[in-house]
């Protein structure tokens, strides 16, 4: 969950999201290096522009080689991990479990028909029903319970307008579109509870349809399913 004064991403809860965070930090460090280098060089050339005629009179083969090859290498260093992440993130359409998230104005409902059929709505908890330690506008009355260490196929759809089902800890976000069954995979390697919010402006209560997913061990998941 994101709190005030947070400067970085949430801790990744699976391999893909950790990879994305690492790639972001890596790309950011390269960007900062280029920014400082360019500013530095522009000040240098401003203060030494009188000597620039040297470049016209002499050739600096080594220098030209360096300023041609260096950007190419930087692009390569950015491109290779970027493509790796892209293909790594590309979800497969299979999973051990299928869970459907249906967006409504303004709540989510979850369905599953694999082991035991379940179908419930998850509304936001209002301020007066919050208990001590709950997160305001993030807590829901019925949270989705999923097994960890399991590849889950989420099917995301909507019945009225566009919504978006997001889970920042897994670096996941997918639009819920009426008439489409958008599919993505979720794996969590952690047990824990993760929060998200609807991420596509969908009406007046857009801010008040949070997503709360709890990941438990799969034996507890079966227990929870059969008791539901």
């Amino acid at each position, binding site marked *: 969950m994101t709190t005030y004064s947070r400067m970085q991403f949430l*801790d*990744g809860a*699976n*391999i893909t999201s*950790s*990879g994305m*965070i*690492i790639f972001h*930090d890596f790309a950011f460090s390269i960007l900062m290096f280029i920014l400082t280098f360019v500013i530095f060089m522009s000040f240098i050339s401003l203060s030494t522009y009188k000597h620039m005629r040297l470049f016209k009179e002499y050739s600096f083969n080594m220098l030209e080689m360096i300023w041609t090859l260096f950007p190419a290498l930087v692009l390569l260093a950015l491109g290779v991990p970027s493509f790796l992440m892209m293909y790594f993130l590309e*979800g*497969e*359409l*299979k*999973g*051990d*479990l*299928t869970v*459907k998230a*249906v967006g409504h104005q303004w709540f989510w409902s979850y*369905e*599953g*028909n*694999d*082991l035991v*059929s379940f*179908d419930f709505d998850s509304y936001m908890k209002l301020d007066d029903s919050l208990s001590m330690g709950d997160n305001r506008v993030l807590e829901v009355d019925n949270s989705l319970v999923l*097994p960890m*260490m*399991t590849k889950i*196929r989420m*099917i995301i*759809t909507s*019945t009225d307008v566009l919504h978006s089902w997001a889970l920042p800890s897994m670096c996941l976000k997918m639009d819920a579109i009426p*008439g*489409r*069954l*958008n*599919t*993505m995979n979720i794996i969590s*390697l952690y047990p824990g509870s993760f929060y998200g919010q609807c991420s596509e402006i969908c009406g007046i209560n857009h801010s008040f349809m949070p997503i709360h997913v709890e990941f438990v061990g*799969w034996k507890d998941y*079966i227990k929870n399913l059969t008791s539901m």
Partner: protein
Amino acid sequence: MGASIYFILVSVLNYSVKMASMEERIKYFRTTPFDPRFPQCNQARHCFQDYLDFHRCEKVMTEKGKDAAPCQWFKMCYESLCPSEWKDRFDSWREEGIFAAKI
């Protein structure tokens, strides 16, 4: 970033150990497999096709006077893919005779 690198290393090491074993998967998980006819992110057509297949299969089996139990596979497939609202809508269309395909 350091935490992420550490996490990746630890999880790669533990991944194979902690994942549910094959036996457990077969015992507990039963869901629609990947269908090469529907490789796209939008599985709406897949849901529709499985729904159609189930009712076609049931019709053919009852016409031939055979046991319709094998059709339950398609039922499982469409039930795990289609939202219940879609299923109800398909059912009502079928009853009214305005379903979009020939069963």
